[in-house]
């Protein structure tokens, strides 16, 4: 155990995800040896992220303003909405450079084992958006919802729940991200569930 503020810093760093006691100690001593200007800059950035970052009023993504850059961009197609679990999933989809629509961030997935039910997610906001009563209701009707939740048990259950809710919206097409074999992999190493999904979702080539 170290004394006073050094131990306090190690304890606080140790509470961060993925930072164990050894890593916390290493980071704390790095900060102790760093220039005062570097530490001040880190302190300012931490304060700014807590005070200056808010959630987009339309999609729930992290944003500096009331609307995030994807919702504020008039060049993006407002009739297609990609539903994701977390703000970091928005970046993952953006990295593909294939999607030019808008997003809706649920804030997690349905996980009864973790006590997370439909009311804990931004599903009500999605329904309001589709019903034309959300903050971006002046941008026209949404014609397609792409459900891009994680391909695990919680993500699949969330997709099942959303499909059940959205099927009653007239003229709305609900799609799910395809799942199957990763690029660069060998077929013989694929697990039976992934291969089964790939077979079920096969596409015609001619």
């Amino acid at each position: 155990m170290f004394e006073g503020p050094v131990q306090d810093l190690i304890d606080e760093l140790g509470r961060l995800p993925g930072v164990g006691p050894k890593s916390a100690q290493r980071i704390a001593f790095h900060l102790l040896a760093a220039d005062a200007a570097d530490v001040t800059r880190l302190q300012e950035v931490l304060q700014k992220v807590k005070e200056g970052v808010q959630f987009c009023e339309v999609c729930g993504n992290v944003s500096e303003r009331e609307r995030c850059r994807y919702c504020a961009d008039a060049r993006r197609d407002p009739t297609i909405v990609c539903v994701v679990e977390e703000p970091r999933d928005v970046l993952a989809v953006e990295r593909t450079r294939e999607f030019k629509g808008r997003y809706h961030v649920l804030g997690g997935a349905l996980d009864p084992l973790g006590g997370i039910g439909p009311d804990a997610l931004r599903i009500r906001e999605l329904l309001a958006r589709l019903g034309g009563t959300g903050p971006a209701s002046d941008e026209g009707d949404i014609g397609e919802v792409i459900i891009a939740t994680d391909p695990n048990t919680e993500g699949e259950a969330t997709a099942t729940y959303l499909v059940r809710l959205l099927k009653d919206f007239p003229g709305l097409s609900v799609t799910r991200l395809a799942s199957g074999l990763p690029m660069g992999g060998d077929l013989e190493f694929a697990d039976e569930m992934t291969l089964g999904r790939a077979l079920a979702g096969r596409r015609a080539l001619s």
Partner: protein
Amino acid sequence: MSTLYRDTGVVLRVQKLGEADRIVTLLTRRCGKIRAVAKGVRRTRSRWGARLEPFNHVDVQCYTGRSLDVITQCQTLDAFGSGVVSDYARYTAGCAILETADRLVSEEGHGDSLRVYLLLVGAVRALAGRERDASLILDAFLLRAMSHAGWAPSITECAKCAAPGPHRAFSVQGGGAVCDVCRPPGSVLPGPETFALLDALLHGDWPVADAADAPTRRDTSGLVAAHLQWHMERQLRSLPLVERVSRP
């Protein structure tokens, strides 16, 4: 010294660990409840990520670590997960089943978990196979798991004086049906159909259970949930989120 062992089990829950790993909790046939690290399974190119998902019945090989075991191989025996998650009501009922099994079996109690394991495999198989109403499967599992733990509600005789029934009142705190003499304050008065359904679920009389109407199923579910949570002395997080859709 680390030892290698192999067992079959049902995945009860998974928790994220570090960058791409998971801690997987399994209820196994021989070793009871184990917690083991599955390395790299959150990466999309993982060969086992899909196998080690909740509800799946798997054959695993692990080696014992200092604090947590490590899974080195995994084969799917029954991919129950995909059948359960394709229906939201079944998924919520399944989560309550997994959480109950997780709470009832301790990591130390190896010897007495085989019955809960067999009950769990049967319940998840029935859920995935869509054989009958998810709510009935859940209540039957809860009653039988409680029976194994020694907390089965008394149905045909008074829980306090053992006077033979049928009785009119049910007391959660008292341990089940109570006679008019022993009946404590706060007891409820379910109909005789509810007692019949409780008995059918506890003893696996499915023709009687399937024939029960929606109000009886609802009353029975309420009593089972209250009885379970009273005796476990804690709330189950998944139970209030169970979607009860009775299809008589």
